[in-house]
């Protein structure tokens, strides 16, 4: 169930060292070449930071939009601290009827506390996101 009461919920920060073998597995699975630079969409897989009160996946939930802003290039072996937050929940009438939109933001910082990337995912649930 997704509702406005979820807005503002956030995860604890998670510290992650970007291990070369994990990036390699990601690159091989996607079929893309990589070097010492972390592929752009890899940070989209940083979902281990659970938001208490939000249970995913929800049946029928689809990924509508994805935005990344990179403040600097990430390299293999870098450490990032990231957290996730529910930035918005809103309803809109679309071609499939009433839809609920949820905007999840992930922000990543380096060890100095400098912002490295931010990511915004818009997830769309039919009805009110109730299980069918």
């Amino acid at each position, binding site marked *: 169930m997704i509702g406005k009461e979820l807005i503002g919920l956030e995860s604890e920060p998670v510290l992650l060292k970007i291990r070369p073998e994990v990036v390699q*597995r*990601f690159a*091989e*699975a*996607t*079929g*893309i*070449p990589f070097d010492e*630079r972390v*592929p*752009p*969409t890899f940070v*989209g*897989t940083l*979902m*281990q930071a659970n938001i208490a009160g939000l249970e995913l*996946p929800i*049946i*029928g*939930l*689809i*990924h*509508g*939009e*994805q*935005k*990344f*802003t*990179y*403040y600097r*290039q990430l390299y293999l072996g870098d450490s990032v601290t990231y957290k996730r937050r529910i930035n918005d929940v809103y309803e809109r009438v679309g071609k499939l009827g009433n839809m609920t939109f949820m905007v999840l933001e992930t922000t990543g910082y380096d060890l100095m506390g400098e912002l490295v990337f931010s990511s915004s995912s818009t997830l769309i649930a039919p009805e009110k996101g109730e299980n*069918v």
Partner: protein
Amino acid sequence: MKRLVQYEVSDRLPVRKWVPNDIQIRQYAEASGDFNPIHLDDNYARLAGLGGVIAHGMLTMAQMAAMLTDWMGKEGELSKFNVRFEHMVRPGDTIKCSGYIRERSENTLVCDLEALNHKEERVLSGLALITIQL
């Protein structure tokens, strides 16, 4: 080969073709940790009203990213990368990622992006902001 700094408004980017299959989608689920059954279980995906399994949007976005990074090499860095998933991508589809330069300043390129399937349906549209490493 044309350098990144030589690209001008309306120039096209090199195209990337991609044909997803079930094995790749499963590998992507494992590599990304996104095990939503709409990507893995055909029956489940049908019951969810999708008509069968669909590829992860993020897997399609990764192909678009690969088109950009192959093209830029070390001459550019991505500063913004935004996409909208407009249509479902299924195993066996032929997806063509393309783009062109919409705006440019001395060290910045703004690219319009789109990915079409073999039925000419747009599965993804987007924008990339690239900083040229001068």
